[in-house]
C-alpha cells in the first residue's frame, strides 16, 4: 500500500515523463491550483505549456475543526495543465491512475458532466467530474476562457483530490486516518492546523482587520494595473517613429504584473475568510466578487499585453 507521499511522487513522476515541468506549490494562500500563475496566467496566450504541481488549497468555509472525516479547510490538489490538450488526454489521465496502482479493469470509472466556472477569475471551462466507484477523484476541465479572454490553445486541466484518492487507495473512511508516510498519519501532520484555522476563521478572525487588508491589497493591485495601463498609453514607451503606431513596447517586460497578481490573490483569500466568518451578506457578496473579478480580468488583459505584445502586433498586421 502506497503512502500519501508515495502516491504524490508517482503522479509527479508520471506527468514528468509526459513532458510536464514539475513545479512546487505557490507560496501564497489560494482556493485552488487554478488560481496560481502557473495556471491562471500560463493558460493565456499561444505558447504551449505543460506543468504539474501539488497546490495546498485553502477554503476557509470548508473547515470542520478536524471533526469531519472528509472535509478540510486546507486540502491538497495535484494540478496538471496540458496546453494544448493532446488528443489522447483521457488515456493519459487513465494511465496516471494505473500508475498509482488502480487496476481499472476491476473498478468502475465514469465521466460525469461537470462544468467549471470561477466568477472571481472570469474563467470557465467544460468537462467532467471523474467518478471512481462512486467517488469523485478528479475534476477534468477544458478551459475555454480565463480572465474573460478566449484561450488561444485549449488546455486540459486535471485536478486530483489527493486526500480522497489516497483514502480510496488505502481503504480509509477518514482522511485523518490515511498514512502520510510510513507510520505517520494525516492526522499527525495536519490535525492541529485544521482545528486552529477553523477556530480562527469561524470565531476569531478580526473582521475589521480583514476588510482593511482587503482594501489595501485591492488598492495596491488596482494602482499597479492602472499604472500599467497608463504606461501602455503614454508616450515614450513605444518603439517607432510615432506614438500612435502600436508596440512593441520597450521595457514593458519590467513592469511588476506578477506582484500585482499576488495582491489579487490576497484579495480572493481575504474574501473567502470574510465569507467563512459570516461577515459578507449575500448582497455584498455579489459586489465583492465583482471587485475581485475586475482585478483578475484586468490582470489577464495586462498579462496578455505584456507577454504577447510582439505576437499581437504581428497578428494585427
Amino acid at each position, binding site marked *: 500500500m502506497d503512502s500519501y507521499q508515495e502516491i504524490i511522487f508517482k503522479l509527479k513522476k508520471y506527468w514528468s515523463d509526459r513532458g510536464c515541468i514539475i513545479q512546487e506549490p505557490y507560496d501564497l494562500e489560494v482556493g485552488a491550483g487554478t488560481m496560481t500563475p502557473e495556471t491562471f496566467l500560463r493558460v493565456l496566450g499561444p505558447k504551449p505549456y505543460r506543468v504539474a504541481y501539488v497546490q495546498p488549497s485553502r477554503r476557509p468555509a470548508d473547515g470542520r475543526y478536524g471533526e*469531519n*472525516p*472528509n472535509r478540510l479547510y486546507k486540502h491538497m490538489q495535484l494540478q496538471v495543465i496540458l496546453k*494544448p*490538450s493532446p*488528443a489522447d488526454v*483521457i*488515456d493519459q489521465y*487513465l494511465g496516471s491512475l494505473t500508475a498509482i496502482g488502480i487496476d*481499472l*479493469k*476491476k*473498478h*468502475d*470509472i*465514469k*465521466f*460525469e*458532466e461537470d*462544468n467549471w466556472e470561477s466568477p472571481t477569475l472570469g474563467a470557465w*471551462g*467544460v468537462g*467532467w467530474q471523474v467518478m*471512481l*466507484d*462512486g*467517488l469523485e477523484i478528479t475534476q477534468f476541465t*477544458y478551459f*475555454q476562457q480565463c480572465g474573460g479572454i*478566449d*484561450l*488561444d*490553445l*485549449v488546455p486540459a486541466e486535471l485536478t486530483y483530490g489527493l486526500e480522497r484518492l489516497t483514502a*480510496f487507495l488505502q*481503504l480509509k*473512511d477518514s482522511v485523518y486516518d490515511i498514512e502520510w508516510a510510513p507510520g505517520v498519519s494525516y492526522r499527525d501532520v495536519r490535525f492541529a492546523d485544521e482545528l486552529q484555522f477553523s477556530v480562527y476563521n469561524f470565531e476569531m478572525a478580526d473582521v475589521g482587520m480583514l476588510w482593511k487588508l482587503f482594501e489595501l491589497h485591492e488598492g495596491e493591485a488596482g494602482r499597479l494595473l492602472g499604472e500599467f495601463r497608463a504606461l501602455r498609453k503614454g508616450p515614450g514607451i513605444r518603439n517607432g517613429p510615432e506614438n500612435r503606431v502600436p508596440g512593441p513596447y520597450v521595457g514593458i517586460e519590467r513592469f511588476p504584473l506578477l506582484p500585482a497578481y499576488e495582491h489579487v490573490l490576497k484579495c480572493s483569500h481575504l474574501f473567502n475568510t470574510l465569507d467563512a466568518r*459570516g461577515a459578507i*451578506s*449575500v*448582497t455584498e457578496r*455579489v459586489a465583492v466578487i465583482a471587485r475581485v473579478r475586475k482585478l483578475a480580468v484586468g490582470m489577464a488583459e495586462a498579462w496578455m499585453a505584456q507577454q504577447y505584445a510582439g505576437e499581437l502586433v504581428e497578428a494585427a498586421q
Partner: protein
Amino acid sequence: MSLPFLLEIGTEEIPDWMIEGALGDLRKGFFETTGNESTVDATPRRLVLRATGLIERQPDVVQKVSGPAVNAPEAAVAGFARKQGVTAAELEKQDGKYVVMKRVAGRTTKQILAEGLPEIIGKIYFPKTMYWTGKNGLRFIRPIRWIVALLGDDVVPLEIGGVEAGNVSSGHRILGARQIPVTITDFEQKLRDNFVILSAEERQQRILSATGRGQDEDLLKTLVYLTEYPTVISGSFDPEYLKLPAEVLVTVMKHHQKYFAVYENGRLTNRFLAVTNTDGDPDGLIRRGNERVLRARFNDAQFFWETDQKKKLADRVADLAHVTFQAKLGSYLEKSRRIEALAAELGGDGAAVRAAHLSKADLTTEMVKEFTELQGVVGGLYAQAQGEPEDVWTAIYDHYKPVSMEDSIPRNRGGQLVSIADKFDTLRGCFGIGLIPTGSKDPFALRRAAQGIVKILVEGKLRLPIRKLLNSDAKLEEFFLDRIRYYFKDIRGFKYDEVNAILASGWDDLVDVEERLIAIQAVRPTEDFEPLAASFKRIQNILKQAQFTGNGGAIDTALLEPGPESDLYHEFQNVRGRLANLPYRPALESIASLRPKVDLFFDKVLVNAQDPQIRQNRLTLLQTLLAEFSTIADFSEIVTNT
C-alpha cells in the same frame, strides 16, 4: 444499386441529458440532405446514424441553356455554340431562340454526404458547446476523436475538427480495443465484442433485468446514457442509518450517488443498486468502494441531522434576518413575515399561519445547506420531530409544491395557502423591482411560481381573487394571464379559442374559469353554438362600425318593430330571466337557443334604419344582448368556420 450507410461520431463523454436531442437533430439533418430516413443510436461516446437504400448517384438531369435569338447575327450564334461546347449545327431552336439541351450528370451520394455531413454535424444543437482545436475552431459538445463514415464498403471522405473519417471505431474505454476496423454489417457486433452495447433500449433492458421494473425513470435514463456496458451491482449500508428520514437517504442515493434505492413492501431497505460501466465486480471492489462513499455521505447527513436538532425551527426564524432573499427585497425573515400575513389574509387558520411562520427556517440548517433540493421537506421533518401538529408540519413539508406541472399540489389547505402566499410574495416583489422574466432568463423561476399558483387554485378548488392578489400590477397580470392560458391550453388540453373566450369574460376566480371552460367545451359541438358565436362577432362588428357606445340608453320597446325584432327582444328577455339561476352549461345552451331568432333578425331587419331613433334603439338592443351574454364567455373569440 442501393447502398447502406453508417456514420459514427466518436467523442469524449457527452452529457447524458443532451444525447437524445442530438440524435434527433442528426436524423433530421440527414433526412434534409439525403431524403432518406435513418435510425439513430448513442452511447456517451458515440452518436450513430444508420440508413439503408441510399441511391449511388442522383439521376442525370437535362438542363436547357438558352442562347441568342434565331435572327441574331451568325457570329453571336457561333460564339454561343462554342461556349457551350457544341457545333452551331447541333443547336436547337425553341420559342424563337437557340438552345442547347445539356445533360448534367447526377452527383454521387458519396459526394453529397462528404460535403453535407460536416454541416449536418455542425448543426446539431447542444446547450453548451466547447472548442478544443484552438481559438475559433470547431465547436461541439465534447472533442470529436474518431469518425466512421461508410457508404456500402467505401469510406465517405470527410474531415471534421482535424479528424478524418475512416472505418475504424473504438471500444469501451477500459474493456475494449482502441482501434476496431468495422464494416456496416459487423459494426454493432464488433462493438459488442468490445463491451459497447450500442442500443439504449438494450442497455435499459440490461439494467432493468437486474433491478426489476418500476425504477425511477429519470435516473434510469441518466444511467442508460452514462454507460456503454451497464452492469448492476448491489450494495448495502448499516441499517442504523434507516433511522434518518427516508427522504434524506433517498436524496443522497438518487441525486448524489445515482443509485436506485431498494424498497420492500413500500419500505426503504438498507440496500442500494449501483449501475456500473463494467462487465462485473467479481472481487467486490466496486461494491465496497461505493459502500464507503455512501457511508461517508450518510455520516454527513446524520451529523447534520443531529446538529440541526440542537436548535428548534422556531428559534431559527430570527436567524433568517441574515439570509438574504433578494438584495432589494430584504431577508428571508421579512419574507416569512409577509408570507405569514398573506396566509392569514387568504383565510388560513392557525395551523397555516404557524406553518408560514416556520416555513423558511430550514434555510438556516446544515441539512438544507448541503441538500438544497430538500428545502421545505427538511423543515417539515424537523417540525414533525419537534412536535408541531400534523397540519403544521405537512404544510411546511409541502409548501414548495408543485415543483413542476407533473408534481402534485400540497396535500392540505394549509400547505396550499402557504405555498400560494410564498409564490405570490415572490412574484409581487420581483415584479415590483422590475425583475421580470425575459425569454429564457428567469432566475427566480417566476414562471414556475405563477404556474404553481394556477395549479393549486384550480386543482385545490380555491376561490381566491387573483387580480387583487396581484396588486393590480398590469405587467404581472399579463404575465399571469399567459400562465393561466398555458395551464388550461397545454396542460389541460382546452382549445385555445375557448380559453380566450372564457378568459375575456373574466379570470379573477380560476375555479369559475374552469367551470365555464368545461361548460363551453360541452356546448361547443351542439348545432346552434358556432353559428351563434358567428352572430356575436357580427354584432360586435356592427357596433364597432357604428362607433356605438350605448350612451346608457335603455331599449324603448315602443320602437320595436313587430316580427323578428320584437321576437328577438322577447326571446332575449326570456333567456335573460332564466339565466340567473342556471349552471353554466344549461345557461350556455339557453343562449345558444337564441340562434334562430338572431338569424331571423339579421335576415329581415335593417339595423341601419333611416330613422335615427329606430337605428339607435336597434343598436341598443344588440349591445344589451352582447353585454348580457358575454359574462360567461366572449363568444366573438370563438373561431368559427362560418
